[in-house]
């Protein structure tokens, strides 16, 4: 095909996705969509295979393809122009019930030629806990409304009875209605723009370009895989919920131009809602694969073809109905993300040509905290703490990780300003900053995570409540690479204070008055002078910490992200009172660390 036309059509497909995302954000207007960028829009071919993935939450790209295919199977022969379908059943294709897919056929001159699909995390889905994450759920039936596929718009007409039924089952029907409206507007834009493209270039030419685009991605990805070493790399992740620990174990095998991700050895499904279904696991491993291995390749079906996944039935990464899955996106799916990031990182780092593409794990551990309650302006507020989108970057083979720099599976998120949150909720932040020593030590340091504390402030009901699905307080999860340490684990603390306690101006956990108590899972109050403290994980480090440039360690101490003791004990760097490196003592410290490493283990501890 003419390379110029091909190039223009490819660029335009990308722009169509982009325009549809803009529409989605404009209409939605919710914080999780607009700040967290917790959304996805992609285009699919007539058979439901991925054609053009956008920049959103990337673990949705393949799941939405399966959603398209599920709709095709269910509605074969009844798919009309202008229809819009809804699907959110995790056992059919979705990740969890609150991430609703809207899937819409695109027709041209009467023929079905493509699909668009999008999702947002809706404000509520009627699960037993508000906000969609239901830490207290015991099965899928307690996780709210779920559909394996229904027709929401019939030839452009809203099926009001269906919509009313859905809205009748959720806590915030107006906001959910708006979420759905935003996705419908998004589908409309994708359809209109695709229509214009098809009219300008004709359906056969566009179809040929799409086929060529998929073929090209496959050829490029296979060529890249051939350039990487053959071998197997393993990783392991722990999910701890209230003292129960589940492992996700991954063996990634690369042979010639194929990749197999095998989760054999992972633990059985949990009674808690951290499980994920197999479509979710598949999405979870593609989320880091697209940006790490295909940063310069169009994200489509061609990238999916060389990849195979083995996920044992009944395991935490392929759970059996009716196991609960509402926390999957920050549970097993995220662990699949992390495990795949580690094995891909190891493979890239094993290649001298691709070593500069390798990264230790970024932000391995979301913490879903939904706060809800009467606000200071006479209304009612519900919303996520957007700090969960502000993870830490993993270290790379050539540079430190980015402090509070985000995450790989959702490359363009952001967190809300403190003033935005305090304006909408009756709470006050005591501090929000980078957490010292949280970045995984290494020759290149992992990015730091953060820490924050909040108290209720002038709440009309004396406080608010929050739903917390907080794991990762027991195990570091952002694995290091090539000898780098993992980033520090999460920490969630409820500080109980007397009703007349003087809060003062605490700028760290220890300075907050009261008695600390770890919390992680369930629904809790935030009242009186009590505080909620959260520290979130740093990114993994890269390389041996004792070969880190001493000046870089000194700079980290100066800017407060590494403590004196960590500089001394982990990096083997001694600093003079001026903050400058004491080279002589540093050499001695590093020599002592080497000796200790070589000593018999009993003696070293």
């Amino acid at each position, binding site marked *: 095909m003419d390379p110029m036309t091909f190039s223009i059509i490819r660029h335009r497909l990308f722009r169509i996705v982009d325009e549809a995302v803009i529409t989605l954000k404009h209409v939605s207007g919710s914080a999780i969509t607009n700040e967290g960028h917790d959304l996805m829009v992609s285009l699919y071919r007539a058979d439901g295979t991925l054609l053009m993935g956008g920049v959103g939450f990337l673990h949705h790209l393949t799941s939405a393809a399966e959603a398209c295919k599920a709709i095709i199977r269910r509605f074969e022969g009844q798919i009309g122009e202008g229809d819009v379908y809804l699907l959110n059943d995790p056992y059919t294709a979705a990740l969890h019930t609150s991430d609703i897919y809207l899937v819409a056929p695109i027709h041209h001159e009467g023929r079905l030629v493509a699909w668009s699909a999008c999702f947002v995390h809706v404000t509520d889905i009627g699960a037993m806990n508000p906000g969609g994450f239901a830490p207290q759920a015991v099965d899928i039936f307690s996780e709210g409304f779920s559909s394996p596929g229904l027709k929401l718009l019939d030839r452009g007409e809203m099926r009001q009875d269906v919509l009313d039924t859905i809205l009748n089952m959720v806590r915030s029907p*107006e906001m959910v209605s708006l979420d759905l409206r935003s996705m419908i*507007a998004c589908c409309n834009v994708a359809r209109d723009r695709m229509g214009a493209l098809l009219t300008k270039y004709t359906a056969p030419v566009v179809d040929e370009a799409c086929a060529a685009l998929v073929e090209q991605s496959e050829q490029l990805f296979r060529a890249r895989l051939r350039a990487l070493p053959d071998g197997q790399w393993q990783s392991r992740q722990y999910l701890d919920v209230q003292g129960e620990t589940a492992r996700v174990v991954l063996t990634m095998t690369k042979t010639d131009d194929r990749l197999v991700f095998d989760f054999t050895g992972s633990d059985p499904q949990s009674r808690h809602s951290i499980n994920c279904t197999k479509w979710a696991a598949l999405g979870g491993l593609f989320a880091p694969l697209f940006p790490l291995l295909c940063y310069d390749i169009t994200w489509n079906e061609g990238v999916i073809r060389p990849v195979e996944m083995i996920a044992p039935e009944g395991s935490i990464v392929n759970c059996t109905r009716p196991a609960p899955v509402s926390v999957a996106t920050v549970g097993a799916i995220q662990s699949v993300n992390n495990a795949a990031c580690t094995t891909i990182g190891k493979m890239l780092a094993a290649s001298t040509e691709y070593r500069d593409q390798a990264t230790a794990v970024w932000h391995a551990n979301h913490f879903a905290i939904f706060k809800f309650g009467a606000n200071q302006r006479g209304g009612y507020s519900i919303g996520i703490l957007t700090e969960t*989108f*502000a993870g830490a970057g993993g270290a790379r083979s050539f540079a430190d990780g980015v402090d509070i720099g985000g995450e790989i599976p959702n490359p363009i*998120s952001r967190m809300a300003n403190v003033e935005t949150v305090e304006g909408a909720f009756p709470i006050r*932040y005591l501090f929000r900053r980078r957490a010292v020593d949280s970045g995984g030590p290494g020759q290149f340091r992992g990015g730091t995570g953060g820490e924050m504390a909040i108290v209720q402030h002038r709440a009309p009901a004396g406080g608010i409540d929050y739903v917390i699905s907080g794991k990762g307080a027991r195990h570091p999860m952002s694995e290091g690479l090539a000898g780098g340490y993992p980033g520090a684990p999460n920490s969630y603390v409820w500080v109980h204070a007397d009703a007349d306690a003087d809060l003062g101006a605490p700028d760290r956990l220890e300075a907050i008055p009261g008695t600390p108590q770890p919390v992680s899972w369930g629904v809790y109050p935030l009242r009186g002078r009590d505080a909620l403290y959260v520290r979130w994980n740093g990114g993994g480090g890269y390389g041996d910490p004792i070969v880190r440039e001493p000046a870089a360690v000194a700079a980290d101490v100066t800017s407060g992200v590494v403590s004196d003791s960590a500089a001394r004990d982990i990096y083997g760097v001694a600093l003079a009172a001026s903050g400058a490196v004491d080279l002589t003592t540093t050499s001695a410290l590093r020599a002592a660390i080497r000796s200790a490493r070589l000593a018999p283990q009993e003696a070293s501890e």
Partner: protein
Amino acid sequence: MQDSPTLSYLVATDVGGTCTDTIVFGSDGGIHIGKALSTPPDFAHGVLASIQSAATPMGLTLEDLLSRTHLFVHGSTVVDNAVLTRDGARTGLITTLGFEDTLHVTRGAYGRWAGLTEGQMKHPVKTDRAAPLVPRDAVVGVAERVDCFGDVVLPLDEAAVAAAVRHLVDDKRVEAIAVSFLWSFLNPAHEARVRDIVAAAAPGTYVTLSSDIAPVPGEYERGSTAVINAYAGRITRNYLTDLASQLATRGYGGATMVMQGYGGLLPATEAADRAVGMIECGPAAGVIGAKFLGDLMGDADVIAADMGGTTFKVGVIQGGQLEYAREPMVDRFHYIAPKIEVVSIGAGGGSIVAVDPVTRLPSVGPRSAGARPGPVCYGQGGTEATLTDVMLLIGYMDPDQFLGGSITLDRAGAVAAVSRQVAEPLGLDPTAAAIGIYRIACAQITDLIREITVERGLDPRDFVLHAFGGTCGMLAAAFGEELSVRRVIIPYTASVNCAFGLISADIAHEYTTTRTLGTPAPAAEVNAIFAQMEARARAQLHAEGIEPGRQRMEWSVDLRYCRQVHEVTTQVHAATPLEPAGLARLVDDFEALYERKFGKGSAYREAGIEMTAFRLTARGLMPRPVLTVEEEGPADPAAAFMGQRPILDLTSGGMANGGIYDFTRLRPGNEVAGPAVIHTPITTIALHSGHLARMDRWRNIVVTTVS
């Protein structure tokens, strides 16, 4: 040009990244143009050279011209340059204890990806934040706290402030201090007290308060604004002071007005303390110039496109209103200041054309050969094929008539480079490759303009397109047709458009009061908010010598649907002070605007509507230039006909014999039908079959699609 001692002049000079452009407007309606290279970091030097280059053809010395100049209007890239080259002051930041990292953490990933291309965003392993303007060890937190109602929760620890100032000035050797406390825009007392303490402890230190420079919510962006302003503050003040004294030495006795990013002018004395206001003021002036022409020609909806050597910039005027940037940035730093939205991509005449070795997709830019070494055909040592080389291959540039014949273009070199970089990798002949690249450049620009119009809920088909800059004319008719704009206009002043914009602007002051009010609200409460701002504004304009008859007060209000995040600035059209009916109309206007911007069905009425900010634009009207109008004559352009040669005709898809015309010999009323090219002294206007170009009464070229 005959000089008469009775004439007086308005002089406007715009300092851009490459060129410093001057336009001199005589009281007789005469327009004179000057151009010189910009001279960073000593920009004043280039300003004088540029004015000189306008004066010489007028038969005047620089001193003659300046002594008869009644007003000097100025725009400069000095602030952008200080930030981009990290040439500003050593700066410290004093902020609320516990929030010392806010600036460096950039709301998480936001500062890591903002300002990157889509391709870069998809490659996170290779992304980082920009190096900060304030090192982390020059940030000091002090105990203090104000809450969301503006009430003090914790008093300011003044001893800690004094210690912080000593630490920053003595140990960190800072020359400037930014101050940014939580909620200071509601209660600036603590920040103001810090200013006093600095003045007492370290007089001479440059101080910027966030509550002064950006009294709006959002501590990251507000603090970043204060930091940028502190960082570039002294450079800006020194530059404007120095320029004023240099102009005075050469005979200029009047005031200097300085362009702001929001498209209004400020007296230089005020502009000197608002460095952030000058960011991207040149491109803003370009949009103001387009608006002036649009108003003149009766076009309220204009897309202003400027394409020079390295970038393609586009701004939008809708219903005679300017569009403001939602999240402005300089380099990769966010700031908050009203700024006309100008979006750019790295596509210009110097953009390098290539085929991606991995995907084999041909592309234009964003890498540029710049002014040096420049395109291969300039023969200045450039070896990589650029868009300009492509233009030569498809017949849009005359190898022997470039820049009045001063340079002979190297056609063979351009052919060889395009062959090597594009044609051979794709198995095409060089001409076919060049045509393909031209199509891709058009498609990229089309996609960009569609994106920025769609982002605002606008339809390009309702707009006319103004094409400025040296490269735009070669593409504008083609991408204008693809966008289906009503017509494409290449203005007579296209080569100095930003300077032209300077002389068509008014003095403008922007005031904002942040306050949340539900609707319906008592009109008296809204009026009281505006009355306070108006009193300040009128005193300010009075001090600038603007009498009440030339003062204009424009009210607008930010509204939003409760529980949604998108605010829409809505103009108050009703008489002010507002009656209840006027306030109701404001809410209706907001609803209409919201639906237009964000699409049908996007409004969320059920939750109610609230007002979040009150904005006053106080204008001091400046005299408008009166452009000379010529009678339109016959359509026949024979007098300007120079011959024929093969040129690309996109309509037929290949090279065709096209007419070649000399712009300087065209007369108003003349019409040229495509395929054809019109050579102007600075650019080429390319017409494809079906395009008709007409020279209008102001000597603008107006292109319409006739078939």
